[in-house]
């Protein structure tokens, strides 16, 4: 049993950092406009499909296609905010939430119309060959270059994100908005621009996560955003929704818990781990691991 532990741990960490990458998108949007952006999982899915499309239809190299997909997804995120959420800023919460679900379902089926409903393999020819080779091996654990690449990319993006949030003007504006929208706008912050920027940033990171997962599992399908979205949301809740470091921590904890649960308890309930963690955290500690106390407005 124990010889399984390290490989499961590595697998869990790989998944965990990817969940963290998606969870950050939920948590940032929630922090700024207090909306669960249900369509975030679909942006993640679009990232993967757009990347494959750029490689096969346009003939872009792998790394360039990733960047192009990121930019497109950032645009999709901003567009979502513009057409779906912005008109509802003053509407009841229920309306915005239902809109978000409607958007999620719409995008998922749009992908089905565009790319078909069957799972596709990732274009393996386009992926640099060395990524599938073993980079490190110690005591029975093999780390591929792809896994190292995933760790490297996610870590870089997380550090970049933290720098944006803590060191730049727009990051300060985001934090101000999360505190109090009215006061922020009185201080001359362009609220709608900052919200659009938040969507763009979160969506671009979600797109990268989608691409990494579809390369890791060599598979992409229109409903992939659904489960991944829920898991990332569970990660965001676990870490404390609204808290960016919380989302990172939550993602990693959830990924590891899932891999260990699948390895030692039952692989059938792999996805169930995320739901169970989510329900338990929401009931027993709604503010999450690193979140501040939630103000109950009801």
């Amino acid at each position, binding site marked *: 049993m124990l010889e399984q532990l390290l490989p499961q741990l590595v697998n869990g960490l790989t998944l965990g950092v990817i969940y963290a990458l998606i969870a950050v998108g939920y948590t940032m949007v929630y922090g700024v406009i*207090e*909306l*669960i952006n249900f369509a975030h999982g679909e942006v993640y899915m679009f990232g993967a499909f757009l990347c494959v499309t750029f490689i096969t239809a346009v003939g872009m190299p792998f790394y360039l296609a990733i960047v192009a997909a990121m930019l497109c997804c950032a645009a999709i995120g901003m567009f979502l905010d513009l057409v*779906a959420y912005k*008109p*509802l800023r003053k*509407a*009841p*919460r*229920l*309306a*915005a*939430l*239902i*809109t978000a*679900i*409607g*958007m*999620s*379902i*719409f*995008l*998922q*089926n*749009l992908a*089905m*119309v565009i790319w078909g*409903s069957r799972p596709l393999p990732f274009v393996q020819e386009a992926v640099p060959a060395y990524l599938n080779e073993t980079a490190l091996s110690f005591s029975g654990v093999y780390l591929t270059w792809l896994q190292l690449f995933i760790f490297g990319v996610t870590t870089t993006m997380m550090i970049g994100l933290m720098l944006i949030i803590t060191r730049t003007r727009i990051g300060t504006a985001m934090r101000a908005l999360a505190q*109090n*929208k*009215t006061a922020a706008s009185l201080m001359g912050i362009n609220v709608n621009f900052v919200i659009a920027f938040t969507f763009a940033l979160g969506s671009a990171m979600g797109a990268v996560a989608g691409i990494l997962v579809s390369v890791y599992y060599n598979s992409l399908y229109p409903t992939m955003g*659904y489960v991944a979205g*829920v898991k990332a*949301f*569970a990660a965001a*809740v676990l870490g404390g929704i609204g808290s960016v470091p919380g989302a990172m921590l939550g993602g990693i904890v959830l990924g590891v818990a899932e891999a260990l649960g699948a390895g030692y308890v*039952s692989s*059938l*309930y792999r*996805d*169930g781990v995320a*739901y*169970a963690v*989510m*329900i338990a955290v*929401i*009931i027993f500690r*709604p503010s999450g691991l690193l979140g501040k106390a*939630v*103000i*109950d*407005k*009801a």
Partner: protein
Amino acid sequence: MGKFKPLLGVLAVGLAAYPLLPFANEYLLHVMTLVMIYMVLAMGLNIVPGFCGLLDLGFVGFYGIGAYTAGLLTVHYGVSFWLIVPLAALNGALWGVLLGAPTLRLTGDYFAIVTFGFSELVVLFLTNEIWLTRGPLGLPGIDPVNVNLEFLNPDWFWEFQGEVPYFYLAVLMVLLVYFVLRRVEDSRLGRAWFAIREDPLAAASCGVDILTYKVIAFAISAGIGAVGGAFFARWQLFLSPDMFKFWESFLVLCMVVLGGLGNIHGALIGAVIMVCLGEVLREVLYVAGLPPEVRFLFYGLIMVLIMRFKPAGFFPAIAATAKSNPLLVALAARIEKTYGGRRESHS
């Protein structure tokens, strides 16, 4: 609604007599029965988001629990339909209480997510506990309901025997749920729900025990969902976990929102519109060579557009709001006016 009443009566009698008419066809009867199942589901779901203002994304979980309760009891113990429906309702309501009691104190978004997680866990359970449900293979061999309707069924319509009894059973079910909910809507319970929806703070300060009333709402809603499921099981005669995925919750939510949150008649109309639209879209998509699930593309779009342009749906529950205690409404308005600024600062 008032001046249309005679017209509606004629329409209802006409529809009820339809299965007995010589030109009745099995497909239309099937669709009508499906419409009525969704009417029951829409009326049931409507209680939570419509009357109490909380988004329930896990409604299909209770529908599935009801269906499998009915299916398993029939297959293994041959229990009669008349006993199965109340048993399924009780089981659904029990799960409603188990899920609702700890979670209904949560704010709207969190509650939506927890219910969603619950329905996904139900699907996982139905898929994985093969010893009980046969998992993805599905549960076949459920007995049809035996209702002797021969006196309604002259010899020359013998081919409709299958659908006709179900049609009338469904009518009975819709009427029952409708009248119960109409009574509840006008009762102390219903008014407490509206008060909670309009302003929880005001309701609480008027002595409404918010959590208890919410749990009751959730349990009744779950019970009605399970009734719909039990009927569905005995009508389809086959169940599989796929039938109870999130899509279904979303579809029923579409009906409720389209018709008008909080309006029972709206839920009924929403069910008619969505099921008919679904049938038409299925044909169109078949011709276009697309998978039938793609019809949810249009449903998603409909939801977004309704929320944008008609946030209260096409038949808003104005009557219902006015009926809730006027004193409470006035009080809510005053509290909002006095403390509006302070409460705003949290968001």
